[in-house]
């Protein structure tokens, strides 16, 4: 009970602090500071029509590189920690097979979802979306496969290859920016082109494609590790017949 009282006191204290901050806050009416510079110079400097993409990929590119690194470390941590988990945890029994309708819908929808994810990160400099969203959509397609068939296996070699290649390409494009343009992760190593076209904004589509593939494979990796290793397909077929 005393713990609950302390918790209540802390929450009320923070509520008081935040309320005073809120009451003394005046909303901005104009863009100020760095945002003003970004909005007024972005299109002529970088050529991407989506300002958020321009900030994420170029102006704050180092942030994004660090974020991808954090994501990679989290995925690695999950896979290292869960490596031998099935030995000690008791097996919860056979998993129920999913229905025919769900199988058919998955077969129908998975290509569309992957294609849509690719559309999102390739068009990241024109429309809302980008590498992170597209990666999450691709990971959702993998998740749909897992949900439909609990014993679905993934090809680890292909996943690892895609992840390493995209990460290496990302850093390589960044280093190329040092030599060919203004600095690390500068997108002007390629011609800017006409704003609004798909082949515009320099290297932003390439960088966002790399980020999308890397985020997608890493999230799929996390999901697969959390689900546990796939059992052999022979066993699964027998289970299906037994039911």
């Amino acid at each position, binding site marked *: 009970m005393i713990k609950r009282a302390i918790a209540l006191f802390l929450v009320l204290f923070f509520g008081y602090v935040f309320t005073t901050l809120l009451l003394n806050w005046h909303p901005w009416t104009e863009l100020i500071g760095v945002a003003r510079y970004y909005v007024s110079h972005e299109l002529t400097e970088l050529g991407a029509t989506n300002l958020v993409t321009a900030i994420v990929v170029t102006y704050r590119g180092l942030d994004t590189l660090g974020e991808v690194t954090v994501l990679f470390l989290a995925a690695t941590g999950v896979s290292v920690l869960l490596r031998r988990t099935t030995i000690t945890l008791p097996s919860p029994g056979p*998993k*129920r*097979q*999913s229905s025919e309708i*769900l199988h058919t819908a998955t077969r129908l*929808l998975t290509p*569309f*979802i992957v294609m*849509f994810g690719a559309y*999102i990160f390739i068009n990241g400099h024109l*429309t*809302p*979306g980008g590498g992170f*969203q597209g990666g999450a*959509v691709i990971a*959702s397609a993998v*998740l*749909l496969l897992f*949900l439909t068939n*609990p014993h679905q296996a993934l090809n680890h070699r292909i996943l690892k290859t895609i992840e390493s290649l995209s990460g290496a390409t990302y850093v390589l494009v960044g280093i190329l920016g040092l030599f060919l343009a203004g600095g690390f992760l500068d997108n002007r190593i390629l011609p800017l082109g006409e704003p609004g076209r798909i082949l515009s904004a320099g290297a932003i589509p390439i960088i966002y494609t790399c980020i999308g593939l890397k985020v997608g494979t890493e999230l799929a990796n996390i999901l697969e590790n959390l*689900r546990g290793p796939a059992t052999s397909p022979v066993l699964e077929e027998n289970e299906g017949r037994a039911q």
Partner: protein
Amino acid sequence: MAEFIIHLATFIVLFGVILASVRFIKGPTAADRTVALDVLTIISTALIVLIALFVNRVIYLDVALVYAILSFIGVIAVARFIEGGL
């Protein structure tokens, strides 16, 4: 006139959000709550399209597409968990 009817439709949809939330609070089992989640996701798709209409930006429809494609995965996940196949 047409604009007024669209506004009226939006208010009706918002009232639907409140009703579905009521079932979510009341629902005795996890399956009932998942039904409420299902209804709320599809209502949200309609709401997003209505918002896109109000602010008059066609690019917002991409978000509605993501919703229409992905929102059912959450419901399927909970359902497969309930039947023991996750």
